[in-house]
């Protein structure tokens, strides 16, 4: 499958359908997998595909230095493909300049704190049923037998990742849950790695950086930490695709994916909205419908 992917990218580069391919390569310490930016057909051997391809490469699509390449080909896993859809629906990427290369994925192994690969899949992958990327220009790889599901079911299950942990969190009393997040947020150092790693956090100036006046305390104190993390979760309502890049990036090991998935699930529960399943859908937060229910505010 790795060769199939390299061949597809080589062809795109040779035909000049793309100026750069953003894929995965062995770029880190001891060959750890991270993003590579390939501009020449001669360099496609740098590209790899395996169960260590953790990053959501969609985060690069809105960066000025990446946009400067011109026509971009991007390698996406099924969950990451949904992030590209959200970015397109929010007018952050020009689909005419984008070739979305979806790879069939049967799960990614999580990284241990020392950066090495653990012998276990991410929680989101354990419960994932979406192995074939949707809404992509081309698909590389075949779904293993027994794993194929129709697209509709896959969309419905799209926020299923992490549900076991979420269910545990929801079973807590309000006090227990508050204590849980209090402990988690007490570790936050306010580096904003979550924001920088998130494809959806593309604002030129984040509300956390506004200082005339200051909107939220910038201190890594409990007050500021609660304000920041809750504010970011709210901004991700109906937008988070559950890729888990925030949790992977967090140096303090805060389970941010659980927080953001909670809000995603609320969008699904109250509005039947799942982010990134279809092009041309208006953002949940940016639209109003006559039949919107209001009970959730009360």
């Amino acid at each position, binding site marked *: 499958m790795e060769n199939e992917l390299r061949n597809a990218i080589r062809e795109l580069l040779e035909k000049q359908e793309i100026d750069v391919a953003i894929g995965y390569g062995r770029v880190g310490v001891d060959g750890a997998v991270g993003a590579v930016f390939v501009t020449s057909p001669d360099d496609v051997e740098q590209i790899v595909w395996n169960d260590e391809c953790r*990053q959501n490469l969609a985060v*690069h699509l809105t960066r000025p*230095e990446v946009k400067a390449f011109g026509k971009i080909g991007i390698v996406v896993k099924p969950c990451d493909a949904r992030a590209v859809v959200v970015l397109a629906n929010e007018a952050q990427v020009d689909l005419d300049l984008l070739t979305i290369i979806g790879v069939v994925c049967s799960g990614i192994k999580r990284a241990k704190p*020392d950066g090495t690969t653990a012998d276990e899949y991410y929680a989101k992958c354990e419960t994932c049923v979406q192995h074939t990327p949707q809404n992509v220009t081309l698909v590389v790889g075949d779904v293993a037998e027994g794993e194929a599901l129709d697209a509709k079911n896959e969309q419905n299950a799209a926020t299923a990742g992490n549900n076991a942990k979420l269910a545990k969190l929801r079973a807590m009393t309000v006090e227990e849950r508050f204590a849980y997040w209090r402990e988690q947020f007490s570790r936050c150092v306010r580096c*904003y790695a979550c924001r920088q790693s998130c494809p959806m956090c593309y604002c030129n100036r984040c509300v956390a950086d506004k200082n005339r006046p200051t909107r939220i305390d*910038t*201190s890594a104190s409990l007050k500021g930490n609660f304000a920041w993390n809750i504010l970011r979760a709210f901004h991700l309502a109906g937008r988070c695709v559950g890729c888990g890049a925030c949790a992977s990036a967090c140096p303090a090991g805060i389970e941010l994916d659980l927080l953001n998935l909670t809000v995603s699930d609320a969008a699904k529960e109250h509005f039947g909205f799942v982010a990134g399943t279809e092009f041309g859908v208006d953002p949940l937060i940016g639209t109003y419908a006559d039949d919107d229910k209001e009970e959730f505010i009360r």
Partner: protein
Amino acid sequence: MSQIVTLEQLKQTLGAKLAAGAKVVAPVLDGEFASFKEIADVEQASFVPRICMQNSIEEFFFPKHETIFTFVRQGNDVVLNDAPDFDVEQIVVGARPCDAAALPVLDPLFAWDYDDRFYQRRRAKSTVVSFACTQSDAHCFCTAVGGSPENTHGADAILFDLGDGSFEVRAITDKGKALFDGKTTESDKVGKACDAPVVNFDVWKIADWIRANFDSPVWEQVSLRCVGCGTCAYVCPTCHCFDIVDEGSYKKGKRVKNWDSCQDAMFTMHASGHNPRDTQGKRQRQRLTHKFVIYPDKFKFYLCTGCGSCSRSCAQMFGVRPCLEALDKEVQ
């Protein structure tokens, strides 16, 4: 002959310090994460030499968030109150040699154009006990910046794990001697650290390349995968940039010092809207130049102890070592 202390004796020593009101910082294990934390009970700590830590000991000398003074409006006046001085004894135990080595690197900075009493008080009140390394990994590169698995720079005492529930104690300073005075027994066992990590690049040569190649396109190329999350700076034992802000209302509030990172685009944003470091390549260049050119030019130390925490924590698999290795290809 060597001096040894058993794990029980070490715990008793620290327990006595806790009972006397001292603050004790030690590695605490939480699942698979190990981090330096203030402990209330010695049983909370994990006295096993580790190289992978979620934080460094720096925050116990230069906290991630610290109040400078508080202010309150009283009638037409504003009353300022200085934050109280750090006034307890602090024992930091279990530091990695590369953590301890960061302190002498930071000392001249916090006593340069301004005597930073916050840092200096904590430093004067603290005793640092490090663990000699028992292993290194592919992220470690202390050997490239003058360190080693048994480096004693910045430590008041260093402990070598003897693998039998005891440690060889080598007191380095008077503070270290005082902490273990009467607590050790003589032995013929001698501790040994692991082999030094192998490094195939020369930081001195890379620093020369950095000096000569400010405008090189290589900076943008090597930094493309960096998303500017700044985790590298927040886990770094030597990174020390901070921001000063006022918090509260006009009636009552405080002026605070918070950690900051040069990897954040806002770090250099001018009020005019102009940003001299508007791409990740320029920000990465700043980080490396500060660590390997600017700081050693000014203070004679690299602003890096080779601990590898940056690359271990980086979700994009970047960090100082991968960056140095990429630059090394340009040197050759």
